[in-house]
């Protein structure tokens, strides 16, 4: 059968391309975005759609904490959509990567293919769930919940196609980094003041599956 999402893509011209800039110079690691997301999207215990990874570097007195707010990157070339056998992972014309709960069968293939580990199995639904840029709010003209909740305006959300938007201005004028661009997924979440140490994979001693 043809693309089940065809009808949802109606009227595609002049649509925005949503993206996010996270200014880590403003981030204080208060985890408010994390909580706002949990409340907004009713995310069950033990899983997160968006979270703030926090690391500590150096020795006293030269120490620092670095943060990395993490969420789905709403990639331009999302590997999750490519590998999904039933087209449940799909991308809207405005770039938001979605999961169709009517189609997802919970095979978890997308989970193992996403380089950012942002997808999880919803324990109650038995299918994939992840950040969707609060598409209900965005469609209603609001900001995503995490952006609105951030006390320091460290998260900035907007239209990447519009050169006048705040996100485009920041991307054009500030040094920005994206997570793992070498994965070829072309992520659309940009970081200002990014500390690559927050990306380093953990050594064996800290392996998750032993816990």
């Amino acid at each position, binding site marked *: 059968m043809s693309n089940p999402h065809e009808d949802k893509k109606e009227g595609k011209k002049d649509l925005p391309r949503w993206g996010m800039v996270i200014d880590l110079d403003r981030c204080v690691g208060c985890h408010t975005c994390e909580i706002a997301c949990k409340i907004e999207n009713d995310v069950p215990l033990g899983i997160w759609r968006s979270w703030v990874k*926090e690391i500590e570097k150096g020795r006293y007195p030269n120490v620092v904490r670095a943060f990395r707010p993490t969420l789905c990157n709403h990639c331009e070339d999302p590997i999750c959509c490519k*590998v999904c056998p*039933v087209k449940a992972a799909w991308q809207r014309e405005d770039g938001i990567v979605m999961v169709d709960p009517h189609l997802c*069968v919970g095979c*978890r293939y997308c989970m193992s293919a*996403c380089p950012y*580990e942002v997808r999880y199995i919803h324990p109650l*639904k038995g299918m994939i769930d992840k950040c969707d840029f609060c598409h209900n709010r965005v469609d209603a003209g609001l900001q995503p919940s995490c952006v609105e909740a951030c006390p320091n305006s460290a998260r900035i959300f907007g239209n990447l196609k519009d050169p006048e938007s705040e996100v485009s201005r920041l991307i054009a004028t500030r040094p920005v980094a994206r997570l793992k661009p070498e994965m070829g997924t072309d992520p659309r979440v940009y970081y200002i003041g990014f500390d690559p140490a927050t990306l380093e*994979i953990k050594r064996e001693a800290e392996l*998750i599956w032993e816990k």
Partner: protein
Amino acid sequence: MGKVVFDVHYQTTLAFLISYYFYCTGLSAGSFMISTMSYGFGMTKYKPASKMGVVAAVLLLLLAPQFLLMQVGWPIKSVWNHFVYFNPVSAMSYGAFLLMLYPLNSIIYGIFMFKGNMKLTKIFGLIGIPMALAVHGYTGWILALAVARDYWNTGLMPIVFLFSAMVSGVSMMILLIMIRDRFFTKEKVINKDLVVSLAKILGWLLVVDLFLVFCDYSVLLYSKLEGKEVAHFMLFGKMSFFFVVVENLIGKIIPMIIVMIPRTRNSYFWLTVAALMNMVGILAMRIVTVYGGQALPLM
């Protein structure tokens, strides 16, 4: 460098059930290949193994998808959606078709074989070979196309999977033939010629398999951060007992030596030991690949 204060851990994606699924399709593909050797390619020496091979292939392939269905969150929906919402760029999409067509073809092939219709047996046997390769090769592709994991994301993965499938299939056939001949025939004599030539095949398949593992790891150890890390994890870390000792030493190297030395190859006791060790080793290989490949966090 830094010490992690807070991070969110992902859930294990593909778990043991998937390893068993890979193991069963592998055994099935391997035994199917043995069964086609006499009817498809006219190697009459292997004829006594044909019927047993096809029965084993069908039974295992009926068992294999059960593990898959236990793993997915929505088993019935998954069967339906796989056919209706076919995604041509996903390797997993093709699985549903292969898992239906291959057992069907094997059953038809088996029926003609039991009825003694040589011509049709040959035709369906030859159709079955690419299917058997595909039904197991695609599982290798599933892993290879998950670009996030360096351990899986290699072009060798489907080939490694094919060889380990044939290796374990041949081992299983050796065991089954010995059991059948010894306990379920009138003469109670094992067909030595057949078993020993299967053991020779097993030896050479193991040589290729070990070579592929060597290629894979030599490249991984020189590759990028995650690749290096995962290779160390397999060779010297928490997975080393399963990978080095169970999979490669017990599962491949010792059986290879046993079937390469004529003295032990001609001894039923040693052959049984070699085949059993190899079957355990390949099961360990499936678990190491599926579980170890995603054991390291990505970021």
